[in-house]
């Protein structure tokens, strides 16, 4: 019985390690598996090279059968932070909050206060888009040069995380070739917003990061 318990313990530990996933998927105890768990962040030039695109993904490793019932949490704000003065403090934010089947975007706009607490800033651009249902064509809203999308997407991240875990755990000495994408066939809840570069600094380099914040 003691042996069995020990084996069970190892199994649970191995499972926990396996699900300690990157890029930022399930990265920390306070957020893992919850609606505020950011899985990934991308920022790249748009199809129109005058625009920049921000992508935040949350709620990783959704199976196809779990995706239809997955939803954004109305108590969670996703906030894109933009520093365009080189001090790693946000000068502009884009806030996204869901309400009743729609995603509301506020910004780019200067935050009320920088740092760990935010209130919604309604004085800047506002963009509202219907959240796309699982299996439907993406709903895109473009208002005053800003385009917005929210809904389930294929997880764009790819990594042989299982083999990485085996290497870190000491049970493998290297990666396989070919490797196996641990994230293949899984979905995320995705928020995509494309804004004119002129709204976030115009030229030069920005520093950007994404935060999830929950209503207290």
């Amino acid at each position, binding site marked *: 019985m003691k042996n069995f318990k020990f084996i069970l313990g190892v199994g649970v530990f191995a499972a926990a390690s396996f699900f300690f996933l990157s890029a930022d998927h399930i990265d920390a105890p306070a957020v893992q598996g919850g609606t505020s768990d950011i899985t990934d962040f991308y920022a790249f030039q748009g199809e129109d090279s005058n625009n920049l695109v921000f992508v935040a993904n949350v709620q990783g490793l959704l199976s196809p059968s779990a*995706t239809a019932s997955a939803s954004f949490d109305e108590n969670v704000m996703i906030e894109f932070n933009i*520093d365009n003065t080189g001090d*790693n403090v946000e000068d502009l934010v884009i806030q996204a909050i869901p309400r009743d089947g729609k995603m509301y975007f*506020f910004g780019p706009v200067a935050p009320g206060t920088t740092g760990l*607490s935010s209130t919604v800033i309604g004085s800047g651009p506002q963009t509202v888009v219907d959240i796309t249902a699982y299996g439907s064509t993406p709903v895109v809203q473009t208002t005053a040069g800003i385009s917005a999308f929210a809904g389930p997407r294929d997880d764009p991240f790819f*990594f042989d995380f299982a083999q990485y875990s085996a290497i870190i755990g000491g049970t493998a000495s290297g990666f396989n070739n070919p490797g196996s994408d641990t994230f293949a066939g899984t979905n995320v809840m995705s928020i995509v917003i494309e804004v004119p570069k002129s709204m976030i600094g115009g030229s030069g380099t920005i520093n950007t990061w994404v935060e999830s914040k929950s209503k207290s």
Partner: protein
Amino acid sequence: MKNLKNIFTVLLITLVAFNCSNDDDAGPNSPTGPDFTGTYTQKDQMGRPAVNTVFVSSGSKDSFNTTIPSNQNAAFQAMFEANLTGLSPAYANPGDQNALGLDAPTFTGLLATDVLNVSLDGTTTFYDGTNVLTGRALADDVITVELLLIFGGEDFSENPTLSNDNVDANDKSFSTSFPYLASPW
């Protein structure tokens, strides 16, 4: 003429009044729209991929997520350097660098401030062989880039079985048009 003036005044007032009420409706505290009042408190944050997962020790991961980027270097650089050297012991040799010419203190100094640097002037990529840290595109093989910088040594030739996971692309193609990400499975 006087009548015309009056009509203009009425029109102007109407316009101003309409604009005012329109502003109110659109605001976060609208009496008729959704309620967005309240304070939102930080839970998770992310700049570059896999940083918290790889470089932050297990007991500090929540703390890393709630430390503002401008304070992260002072709070976490030493931990990052210890964990980097633990993963890739060659970094402990004096003068050892990665292919970007960064030694362990410099490389972890860059990573500990977890923001994504993005160019507004052209190509945006994590690394494409030419451009370095000018953004992150969907198709960028960020994990192999990070493995190369951790394990690959000065010229990407060291530890070949550790510096590439041999998963080089996503399992679905991306679109060139908004919203860019592929449809869900």
